[in-house]
């Protein structure tokens, strides 16, 4: 049995009196895409923040490929091979699409001062970045400022940038938010394409179609705790899970969440 790519071991996160993540234990297995569902406020993003190093852990441990990464510094976790996207899209708006992707080049991010000596428009770097942009269908917009991108393209850019860091584990936080059906279908295809390059994916989503088509296993969270675990079918049909989403599910898509 090969080692899990990611292990979250009884991790706790508190904000003052509020417990955002309440002793959660889960794992992402080799080559697996793990889906995480749950109402807003369930602690899903907090979990991603903990794994990626944006939050410090208040209890428990996180292991990446067997190595303890609990409370490791942000850039160390990035260099170890964990990359993520953000719920509210955090691309570098005043830089071009191409620059966004080139900025993530691990050769340079790991040795910033040394990169002073290299040319910024080095052929190899540009080609690498363009290949990624082609892969994500953004090559035509290479010289456009990221801030002017339409919504769907901006999301794709963020994913491209995350991939440019050559990660083994990719954490996606509601990548299809605000997308229509066509764009979502395309996103699903893009994620399928990426899977070969990655050893694991964690996908937070409200769109159940995405979950069904992408996730190998699904975890449902609520109030910082794990509510259910299993295949997409099992979890999405679980009575507890349905109750948590009661009244706010229509056609496999969560509409406006009153608890948002």
């Amino acid at each position, binding site marked *: 049995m090969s080692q899990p790519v990611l292990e979250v071991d009884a991790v706790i996160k508190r*904000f*003052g009196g509020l417990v955002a993540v309440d002793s959660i234990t889960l794992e992402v297995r080799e080559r697996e895409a793990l889906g995480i569902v749950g109402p807003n406020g369930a602690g899903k993003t907090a979990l991603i*923040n903990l794994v990626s190093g*944006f*939050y*410090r852990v208040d209890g428990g441990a996180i292991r990446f490929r067997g190595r303890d990464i609990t409370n490791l510094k942000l850039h160390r976790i990035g260099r170890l091979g964990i990359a993520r996207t953000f719920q509210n899209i955090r691309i570098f708006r005043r830089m071009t699409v191409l620059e966004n992707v080139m900025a993530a080049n691990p050769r340079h991010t790991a040795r910033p001062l040394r990169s002073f000596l290299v040319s910024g428009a080095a052929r190899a770097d540009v080609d690498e970045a363009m290949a990624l942009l082609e892969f994500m269908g953004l090559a035509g917009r290479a010289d456009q400022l990221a801030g002017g991108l339409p919504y769907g393209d901006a999301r794709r850019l963020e994913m491209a940038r995350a991939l440019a860091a050559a990660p083994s584990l990719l954490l996606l936080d509601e990548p299809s938010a605000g997308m229509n059906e066509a764009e979502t279908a395309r996103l699903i295809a893009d994620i399928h394409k990426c899977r070969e390059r990655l050893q694991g994916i964690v996908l937070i989503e409200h769109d159940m179609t995405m979950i069904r088509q992408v996730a190998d296993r699904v975890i449902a969270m609520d109030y910082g705790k794990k509510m259910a675990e299993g295949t997409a079918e099992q979890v999405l049909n679980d009575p507890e899970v349905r109750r948590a989403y009661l009244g706010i599910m229509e056609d496999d898509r969560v509409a406006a969440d009153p608890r948002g």
Partner: protein
Amino acid sequence: MLAEQLINGLVLGAMYALIAIGYSLVFGVLDKLTFAHSEIFMVGGYVGVATAALGMPVWWAIPFAIVIAGILGLIVEYVSFRKFNTPDGHITAALSSFAVGIVMIDLVQKVWGTDPVDLDIPRSIYTAGITAWGIRLAWIKLAILGTTLAIMVGLQLMIMKSRIGRNIRAVAESGTASALLGIDVKRVTQQTFFIASALAAVAGLMLALRGGFADSNVGLGFALKALAIMAIGGMGDVRGAMLGGLAIGVLEALAFQFDLGKFSEVLVWGLMIAVLLVRPTGLFGRATARELRA
């Protein structure tokens, strides 16, 4: 001797406190620092000079200082702070208020020259006093102390009890929430600048009275230290600024007593740096959860 130095320290501290409170009020409401504050402080001294020169009793300079400084404060608010609400606005506001400050210095120097100017008041004010318990208490010092303490008490009352004070506290807590509650944030900001500037000018007047002269170069040295004090006491916390000012004033006086005067300067700034590193919101300030801003 020690007791006399303590009184000196309190007098000094009261002046620091008034200036620091001003910085605190502005920071509380705008999250920005004003570098014109130090020059409004400087102007206070010259209001005293002008009042005396016009033959009026020098205590009339207090209301004059309040009004003139208040107006200057409103000008500073309009020119240097109203428009800069961007994320990096605090830098531009700081630099702009600095520019306004140097204009003030120049204008003052045009009228009165660059050298310190004596206050045209009878010298006897400085020698009159009583001796109690072996301590020499000059009336002037007691008067300064009394005035400044009264102002601080009055200010505390105003902040806690009056509607203006409540509005200021509300905006300091949250500008957006206040606006939603119907508070005219712009008006409150103007009032804050008026009050802060008035305090600084009174402090400047007191300084001039204490020394007997007004100096156009005191601003940066004196008031910048008050800025450090504000940072120590708590950015945006009036109580902290007050206590901090008084404490540092006393400490400085004591330092001079024991011939450690040179180090007082370094001490204050070093203390500020230490506090900012360990607890950026100051000793009394409100700590914000930095982590929530992932």
